[in-house]
């Protein structure tokens, strides 16, 4: 592939569609303005606007050229301002193959190539045939397969297999998928989406006869019953929405473990395929959500530098839902070089009241204010009681641990999160002491790993100051290679991490 090539023409349509999606608000405003004026027919606005976008799309498609020269992918793009993008093979973090509905109609795929840094979002080939994608993928992967970047000479060995063997394939059982869908965290988002939609159409409904009719249907006329009914209907709708969206996102989930990389593919309508080389994984991070934890389920994420999705985070779902007793087995199969069980230390007992205070204080103040101002029901005081319990839970879940080349941080905000970080992947490590922590000889540690555009931090608060120091020492390259000895006497502070069994 030494000549510049264009994408499949469908790229122009998908480009136009993504422009619409990106400027949705602006378009909406234009539509309203258009609807107001009488001398300009409404349909003309829509037709003209879409035509304009289509022309933009075609121009973009015409001016977008790509080729592979040696070990770089060279992309030229931009209608007036030309942009030359060179992606070197050994800097590529993730190769991502998606096929949306439009692409699937024509048997095409979208290829995203991610490097560390934010400019990588432009490095997307919107629509190419499956074969071409496979070819590019293969050419770029030859090197991402080799263990480290610099030894680029080795990649041209004749015996290197064209298609790396799939060592293991792990699928998501139907039962897990259903549990994942019904306990999905996007519940809240769905609720707000529905509330927004309702607030938009509510005036329409209340003016119509339908509203009167519905009112007639509800037997009791009291406001409380009405409100409860509305809330219940909302919640049920939100739940259904999140249920089906999770089902569609994580349906057909499959995890292929290859020799040098792991491939996550998922999605029913919009298929997504993410390839992450093992040596680009920055951290493993297991979350147990508040609904899922009592059921014993958790989600496994991996952090990868440069996998920039729209939010700029680098978290990739490695496995959407798994029973906690099976996590270690799964990690053992997929990422055997991450040590699994470690001895760890919890914050000392005197930190407990800080944890409880921190979560209970703001809740109590806000509740008290609302109670005083709004004359609320006495039951509102359950919230501070719950927050007391919550603070205690946070204290119970906080812990750190370390091994020869690994750090483990466990903490809780709303959901409990357990992070495995290789020491050599730590971008920076900090220890902080507020005045009150200084008095009590406590400290908080925070560790940053590269992930997406901005990196991701993991934090554990109110540890014994000496333990914080040990943690920092662990990060030092020339630091203690063997694990520091854990403090001798307070064995109630010692825990076996990650504690999923």
């Amino acid at each position, binding site marked *: 592939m030494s000549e510049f090539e264009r994408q499949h023409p469908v790229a122009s349509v998908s480009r136009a569609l993504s422009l619409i999606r990106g400027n949705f608000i602006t378009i909406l405003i234009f539509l309203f303005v258009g609807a107001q004026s009488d001398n300009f027919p409404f349909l003309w606005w829509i037709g003209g606007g879409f035509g304009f976008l289509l022309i933009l799309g075609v121009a973009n498609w015409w001016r977008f050229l790509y080729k592979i020269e040696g070990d770089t992918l060279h992309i030229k793009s931009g209608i007036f301002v030309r942009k030359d993008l060179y992606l070197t093979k*050994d*800097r590529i*973090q993730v190769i991502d193959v998606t096929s949306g509905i439009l692409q699937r109609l024509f048997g095409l795929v979208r290829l995203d190539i991610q490097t*560390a840094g934010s400019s990588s979002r432009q490095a997307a080939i919107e629509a190419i045939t499956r074969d071409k994608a496979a070819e590019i993928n293969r050419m770029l992967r030859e090197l991402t397969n080799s263990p*480290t*970047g*610099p030894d680029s000479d080795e990649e041209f060995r004749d015996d290197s297999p064209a298609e790396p063997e799939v060592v293991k394939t792990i699928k998501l059982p139907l039962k897990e998928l259903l549990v994942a869908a019904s306990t999905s965290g996007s519940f809240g988002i769905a609720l707000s989406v529905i509330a927004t939609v309702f607030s938009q159409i509510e005036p329409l409904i209340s003016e119509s006869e339908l509203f009167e009719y519905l009112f007639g249907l509800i037997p009791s006329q009291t406001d409380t019953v009405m409100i409860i009914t509305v809330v219940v209907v909302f919640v049920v709708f939100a739940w259904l929405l999140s249920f089906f969206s999770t089902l569609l996102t994580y349906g057909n989930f499959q995890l292929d473990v290859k020799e040098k990389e792991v491939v996550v593919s998922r999605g029913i309508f919009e298929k997504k395929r993410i390839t992450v080389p093992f*040596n*680009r994984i920055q951290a493993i991070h297991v979350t147990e959500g508040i609904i899922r934890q009592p059921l014993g389920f958790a989600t496994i994420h991996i952090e990868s*530098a440069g996998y920039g999705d729209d939010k700029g985070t680098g978290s990739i779902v490695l496995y959407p839902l798994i029973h906690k007793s099976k996590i270690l087995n799964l990690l053992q199969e997929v990422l055997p070089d991450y040590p699994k069980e470690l001895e760890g230390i919890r914050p000392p007992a005197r930190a407990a009241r800080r944890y409880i205070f921190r979560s209970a204080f703001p809740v109590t103040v806000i509740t008290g204010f609302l109670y005083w101002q709004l004359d609320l029901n006495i039951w509102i005081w359950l919230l501070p009681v719950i927050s007391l319990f919550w603070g205690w839970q946070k204290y119970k879940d906080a812990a750190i641990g370390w091994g020869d080349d690994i750090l483990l941080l466990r903490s809780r905000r709303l959901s409990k999160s357990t992070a495995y970080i290789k020491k*050599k992947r*730590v*971008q*920076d*490590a*900090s*220890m*902080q*002491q*507020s*005045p009150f922590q*200084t008095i009590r000889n406590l400290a908080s540690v925070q560790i*940053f*790993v*590269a*992930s997406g555009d*901005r*990196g*991701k*931090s993991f934090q554990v608060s109110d540890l014994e100051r000496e333990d914080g120091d040990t943690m*920092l*020492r662990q*990060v*030092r*390259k*020339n*630091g*203690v290679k063997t694990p520091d000895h854990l403090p001798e006497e307070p064995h109630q502070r010692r825990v076996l991490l990650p504690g999923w069994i």
Partner: protein
Amino acid sequence: MNEPAFHKITPRTIRVWQIGNFISNLFFFALPAAYAAVFGMNGFHFWVVTGVTSVIFILWMLSIFLMPYLAWKHWRYAINEKEIDLKRGVLFKTRTLIPLSRVQHVDTRQGPLLRWYNLSTVTISTAATTHEIPGLDTQIAGRVRRQISTYARLAEEDV
């Protein structure tokens, strides 16, 4: 465990911080001024405005005459072949460790105020975070930058 040798930052920085705080914290006097503009200065409101103004004045004075000195006193940095170690904070103490193999780039920066005092700020970026060593003598800053980039090249590894 041998601790690396810690350096202090250049004392002239205190003056820069003093001038900076003098100007930027003037803003806080806008709060009682706005309050007075809305509610007037009569009776109860007079005491609110006076009280708030005097508290702000005291804090303003502290931020000019005390805090820059303490901040300077608590700022420490150490650089060796393996890592950069930063200690700072008067009330909230922070210690940060940056492995040199993780450093992506180092810059020196200089605003007009810093240039007047012949000072520079060294900025250290990793793939996740950015850290600053404020107020080093321009010559020292250049040396620190060169030192870090030399060490970083030695410690080169992939991201």
